[in-house]
């Protein structure tokens, strides 16, 4: 179960993905959005968001529940089409018709609902859409052994020790499933890696591994979009922080301009936090950890 530096380098998969486009220099905007908006029927989930995802940078998207974070990244991933504004990829305004188009541009995504097919075995889920094959012509067949092997080892590297990669993924625990989704995206992500609350269901150790992956991807020059509710996860790896509230952008801040405390306060909704801390103090006694933490965080 040890996650040590001797193990083979995983998640270094520029060559695995559908696209093997060369990575642009660090700091170049790979994805840009301008005044982008999205509504579902009469529900306006997102409006007038402007930001960019740059090579070698981690953009954290922060915000309350229902703020529109998942909606935002689904647009970047091609899973939803935006209703207003412009989505610019490599300098060209486009609309991603399907997630496959995004994948072909080297954009890999971990969705909040994970996008796994419950009845299929773990290894089939891992390689779904990018299956390894061997043989030629009509006899080209899946390289089952290889795929099982890779799946097993990639998950092991995340600290997930599966009994059997042939198990239907629907029978895995929540965290195990999340790890499969992350390992898959990291393995296939070529230029941009989008992670929607990847650490939500993970244990301390697994979370650490994911953060490590994020940092590694950044160092390799990928653009990363990272969503989390945990400021302790966001702050160490993030380069820029975009704050959403009720579907609107509250701004886009570089790391230099803020401290962890400011970030936490921002995520929790500022002023309102104080009253919560107050209340927790009442219920749990003033020496309670959480009350102290929240109190310390509130401005």
């Amino acid at each position: 179960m040890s996650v040590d530096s001797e193990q083979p380098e995983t998640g270094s998969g520029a060559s695995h993905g559908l696209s093997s486009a060369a990575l642009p220099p660090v700091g170049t905007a790979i994805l840009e959005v301008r005044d982008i908006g999205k509504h579902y029927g009469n529900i306006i989930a997102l409006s007038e968001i402007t930001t960019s995802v740059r090579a070698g940078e981690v953009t954290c998207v922060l915000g309350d529940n229902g703020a529109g974070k998942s909606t935002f990244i689904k647009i970047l991933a091609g899973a939803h089409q935006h209703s207003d504004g412009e989505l610019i990829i490599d300098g060209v305004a486009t609309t991603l018709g399907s997630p496959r188009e995004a994948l072909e541009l080297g954009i890999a995504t971990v969705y909040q609902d994970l996008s796994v097919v419950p009845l299929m075995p773990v290894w089939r889920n891992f390689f779904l859409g990018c299956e390894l094959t061997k043989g030629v012509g009509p006899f080209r067949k899946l390289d089952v052994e290889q795929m099982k092997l890779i799946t097993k080892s990639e998950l092991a590297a995340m600290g997930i020790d599966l009994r059997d990669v042939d198990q239907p993924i629907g029978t895995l625990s929540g965290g195990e499933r999340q790890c499969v989704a992350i390992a898959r995206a990291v393995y296939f992500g070529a230029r941009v890696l989008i992670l929607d609350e990847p650490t939500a269901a993970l244990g301390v150790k697994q979370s650490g591994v994911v953060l490590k992956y994020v940092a590694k991807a950044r160092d390799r020059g990928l653009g990363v979009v990272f969503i989390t509710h945990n400021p302790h996860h966001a702050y160490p790896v993030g380069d820029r922080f975009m704050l959403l509230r009720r579907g609107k952008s509250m701004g886009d801040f570089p790391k230099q301009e803020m401290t962890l405390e400011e970030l936490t306060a921002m995520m929790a909704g500022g002023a309102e936090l104080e009253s919560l801390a107050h209340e927790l103090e009442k219920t749990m006694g003033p020496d309670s950890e959480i009350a102290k933490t929240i109190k310390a965080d509130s401005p």
Partner: protein
Amino acid sequence: MATATVGDERISQTSTLTKLMKRPEIGALVAAVVIFVFFAVTTEAFATASGASTWLRGASTIGIMAVAVALLMIGGEFDLSAGAMTGFTGLVVGVLTTEYGLNIWAAIFVSLALALMIGAINGILVMRTGLPSFIVTLGTFFVLQGIDLAGTKALIGQVAIQGMSNVPYYDQAKKIFGSSIDVNGSGAGGQIYASVFWWIGITAVATWVLLRTRTGNWIFAVGGQQTAARQIGVPVLKTKVGLFMTTAGAGWLVGMLLLFTTSTVQSNTGVGQEFIYIICAVVGGCLMTGGYGSAIGAAFGALIYGMVNQGIVYSGWDNNWLRAFLGVMLLGAVLLNEWVRKRAETAQ
């Protein structure tokens, strides 16, 4: 990490047999064996070469369709036009050759092209409109049924193809689609029909595709969770349209087998059969909701259906009760099937 592979204390011992038992088709296989033994013991003719040739033949055309329909069902869709398609393609060839004197191979090709086109239309309609395939293909079914009847009537003045065997090169085509091989030398009984070989071939190919190719992976995925599959980058449209075309293609094949075995088709050929195909697929372990099942299981399902159908005749039971027997046997087969599967799944 490495310690986890061998002797994981979280897994109890499992034999290879138990592993095999977890395949979706295992229940259908057991049920098929039970039914075979039952009729072989209780009737005389059932287990003879000539008896077997009869029920194999009955099972074969249904089996080919059931396998195709199983793929489609694993992909999460239905095709109610599959039955009418078998009649349609046969009629097209029959009308074109007997009435318009078209070369038989050209006619066969035309009908294949038409079938694939209809399949593609089904698929594209389903995917583009977001309507359930049950409804879309029901529409196609009705339309095909109407064309089969009215078109044939208008073109040849009757409701069944006549005089097919006088068409030039008929024998060529019959070789491929309608011939039979004697098993025990004696002319009477014990033939294996071409359709049986086609059936075995199709089942083998379908199983291979399903388990060992990318396409197979995609079929499971689009049926299991279409949104997830799309999000992960599976070409959902292509996969589904392909499945509808496969089913239509199988319908064409069966149409040819029927036409060249019996040298005729009628305008209502295949109507109502579409549900038999679905039944065979489900008996063979496919889930109605998609994402799970097997091609070989569907073939076993068809075998069960074929055996029961003929076995009841061999048993000499009062024919009016045919349907009731069929129902009881089907239920019995599926219950046995489920019981075997459950046992297998919880086996230690």
